[in-house]
């Protein structure tokens, strides 16, 4: 060990070079003060801020509806399925009407054949069932548009809502309990186009039955 190094070590061990903490203390104390202020402001903001949701009243409309189902996975287009269901229902009724116009034996034969009349199809991502006993549509597991694409420019739901707005229709959403976030996307797009919207809570995956005794669709 050289002589100068020996001397330096002697100086250190003797504590003759004091370490100054004043500067660091100043900086840290200021930081603490600023952070206390920021924390207090954040707490006040967190306590007082609330996201405002505008809730309009439910009311009837004379407009035609475009029907959608919204769930966790995305959105289903019920419109095409609903139209197909009405078409099949019309076929069923016409079949019965044709029977009633026949003479006795032909009528019996026709009625027997109509007793077992039933149709089942899948239109897009929605299953359609029409029979003498029941008429309903049920969504499949795959949505018409997935949740990840709904908010994008040029998405299917954006085009669908724009089309509905252009045709002066109203929107009706069958809402599943897991689909609240996606519903808000649909509603914000509808609001952009000034489209009237109604919704109905629905058990996940449950069939939608059409006929007498149900609720009328309305808008909010």
């Amino acid at each position: 060990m050289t002589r100068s190094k020996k001397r330096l070590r002697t100086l250190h061990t003797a504590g003759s070079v004091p370490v100054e903490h004043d500067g660091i203390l100043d900086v840290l104390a200021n930081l603490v003060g600023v952070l206390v202020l920021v924390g207090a402001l954040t707490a006040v903001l967190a306590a007082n801020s609330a996201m405002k949701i505008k809730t309009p009243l439910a009311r009837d409309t004379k407009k035609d509806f475009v029907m959608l189902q919204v769930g966790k996975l995305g959105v289903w287009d019920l419109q095409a399925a609903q139209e197909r269901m009405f078409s099949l229902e019309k076929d069923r009724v016409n079949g019965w009407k044709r029977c009633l116009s026949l003479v006795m034996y032909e009528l019996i034969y026709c009625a027997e054949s109509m007793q077992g009349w039933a149709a089942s199809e899948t239109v897009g991502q929605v299953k359609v069932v029409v029979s003498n006993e029941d008429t309903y549509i049920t969504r499949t597991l795959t949505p018409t548009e997935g949740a990840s694409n709904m908010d994008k420019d040029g998405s299917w739901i954006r085009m669908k809502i724009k089309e509905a707005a252009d045709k002066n229709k109203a929107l009706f959403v069958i809402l599943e309990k897991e689909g609240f976030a996606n519903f808000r996307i649909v509603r914000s797009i509808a609001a952009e186009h000034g489209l009237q919207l109604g919704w109905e809570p629905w058990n996940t995956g449950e069939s939608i039955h059409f006929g007498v005794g149900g609720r009328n669709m309305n808008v909010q």
Partner: protein
Amino acid sequence: MSSRRRLTRQQSPPISLFSFLDILGGTLGILILIISVFFIQLQTGKQIVQMVAETSQIEKRLPRYIVCNGNGQVEIHDEGNSFKVNIGSPKISELLDRIRANNKREYLIIGVRPSGFQDFKVLRSRAESLGVTLGYEPIDFGWRIRAPGGKLL
């Protein structure tokens, strides 16, 4: 004498502020943690929502609020008072009757949680059968409600 005083000054022990550094450093860490927690809470689904009456379509009326939490539990926010009751509580009937009596000045907003669909349908039927004007709104599970003038539930 003077040489003795100088000696005393030179030999006085230096004040060490090193422990203060530890304390301040610890305080800094805690504050950063608290602020981070606040921000994370604000960002992740624990929002506070306020249901505001949309009166553009109708004459101006005062809204009353009922939130369906599911399992028969509802929250009532009425004229600055907020309380939790059961769906069968007479307080709901009282509120509905009062809104019906003041139907031109008041209406009902029903908040619907994901688990509250069934209660909502029951409540809506009751309100509709009484001729109460109403609106309804889906409210996410984690959201807390602040009705105008009411306390946070």
